[in-house]
């Protein structure tokens, strides 16, 4: 267990990160002096009012965008600062809000795209691994289908598998289950729980859904309204693997009250700020 734990990488350190969009012009402060730590192999749920800059942080870690000041470290290595922007790479996978499976590739072609394009393995070996992954989560028989032929729930799972096959240190999910109905969401949560417990790795999970955040997270990071700063971290001490009956437990309800209170404060501020802008 100790050796396995030592192998897990993906510790992220976010230190005084500020992001200003268009500093010369409109000057939107998306994130101000935001700091927190994510341990390797931790499942972190990030919540906060819409448009507060959660995705800004994801973009910086993924290497899609720069930060204005501060530093982000991954496993002790500086990856983003005023002077440095890391490039997107296979150690940090992103699962996008609206889904980014290539519609012109079949499920199989999508999943093996990473390993094949990186030249890590032969196509046939990658296909074997992909088939195994699919059958482990009960999704056999969809290899030759195109994404559009599948329900959005299945699409989301395939996209997560496409990320996981690359064995990334960090998986970042930007509201991946938005727009799914409650039943489909439960299936997603169980799926994510299953793949996470099978091979724990750092999960950076942005969501609006507080139940989802508490159900899945080791900790819930609550951000303030824009400019985003750290509001509060709520540690979730529910046992793993999480099961849906826990959603009724006393411990869970207490956590939910705590998260809700913090989020509500920020939501009110965001609402008032909106009112001011309208006036």
């Amino acid at each position, binding site marked *: 267990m100790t050796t396995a734990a030592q192998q897990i990488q993906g510790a992220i350190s976010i230190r005084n990160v500020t992001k200003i969009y268009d500093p010369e012009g409109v000057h939107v402060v998306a994130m101000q002096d935001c700091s927190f730590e994510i341990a390797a192999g931790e499942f972190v749920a990030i919540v906060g009012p819409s448009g507060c800059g959660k995705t800004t942080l994801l973009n910086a870690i993924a290497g899609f965008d720069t930060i204005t000041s501060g530093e982000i470290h991954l496993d002790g290595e500086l990856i983003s600062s005023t002077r440095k922007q890391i490039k997107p790479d*296979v150690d940090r996978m992103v699962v996008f809000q609206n889904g980014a499976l*290539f519609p012109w590739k079949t499920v199989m072609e999508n999943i093996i795209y990473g390993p094949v394009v990186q030249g890590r393995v032969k196509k046939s070996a990658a296909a074997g691994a992909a088939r195994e992954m699919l059958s482990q989560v009960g999704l056999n028989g969809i290899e030759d289908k195109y994404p559009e032929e599948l329900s959005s729930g299945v699409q989301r799972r395939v996209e997560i598998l496409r990320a996981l096959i690359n064995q990334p240190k960090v998986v970042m999910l930007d509201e991946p289950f938005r727009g799914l109905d409650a039943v489909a969401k439960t299936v997603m949560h169980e799926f994510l729980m299953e793949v996470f417990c099978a091979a724990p790795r750092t999960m950076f999970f942005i969501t609006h859904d507080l139940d989802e955040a508490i159900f899945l997270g080791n900790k819930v990071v609550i951000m303030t309204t824009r400019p985003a700063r750290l509001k509060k971290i709520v540690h979730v001490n529910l046992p793993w693997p999480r099961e849906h009956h826990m959603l009724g437990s006393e411990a869970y309800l207490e956590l939910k009250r705590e998260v809700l209170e913090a989020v509500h404060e920020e939501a009110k501020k965001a609402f008032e700020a909106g009112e001011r802008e309208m006036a």
Partner: protein
Amino acid sequence: MQRLKEIFTDRQMYRAVLGMLAFVTVWYLLTAVFNLPRFRQIPNPLAVLKEWVSFEPVSGRSLFTGEYYLDIAYSVGRTLIAFSLATVLGVSLGLIMGWNRMFFDFTFPIVEILRPMPPLSWIPLAVLILPGVEIAVIYVTFIAAFFATILNTLLGVFSIDRNYFLAAKCLGSKPKDIFLNVVVPGSLPFIFTGLQIAMGVSWMSLVAGEIISGQRGLGYAIYEGYSLFQYDQVIIYMFTLGILGYISSAGIRAVGRRLMSWEARRRGA
């Protein structure tokens, strides 16, 4: 389900036939029954059909003469050459323009000025610069199709969701991989829309080019028929053009469906 589809298709067929019958009836009434002054010289549908299938056509051109097929061969040949060139050059340029910001900045203004120029306005320059009338006609056929293809390919590249590029980068793609796996397939639906338009304007420009400076071909024969009062011939060739245009569009659609099976399946085809 299968039966439902059959009934639907049958009903569609039935309506299509009715529509055509109505069209031919109006034509017949205007030319053969009412005998309206402006329509007096226009042949009625029966006369046209008779000429079209005649073994000894007055104009020397019918389904049973070599002349007819020679005219078709000339026009189809010119269109094919022009359209193929427009596809190869237009798609490549469009993809590079959409892919490379600097190349786009250099070329887009020129494209936007040249593109609206009517193909026929190129005729004088084409005749002056290019060796031989034949190549000039092909050039005129090519030019509008070329710009339609560039523009649609370019729009195709721009239409690709930014997340596909980001996802491809995360997954470890090099620029070459992104070009082949995101840019090209992602712009295919727009490219094929562009090719449909390109095929349409090719035929249009071809006929105009053949009328003005061509030798042989359908456009030339239409003009010749007009000059020689062979109005049957004019109408036969107009319909021939219509049929060829339809076949070429259907061909492009079929190729598009093959290359974009993901699109077809989305539409439930």
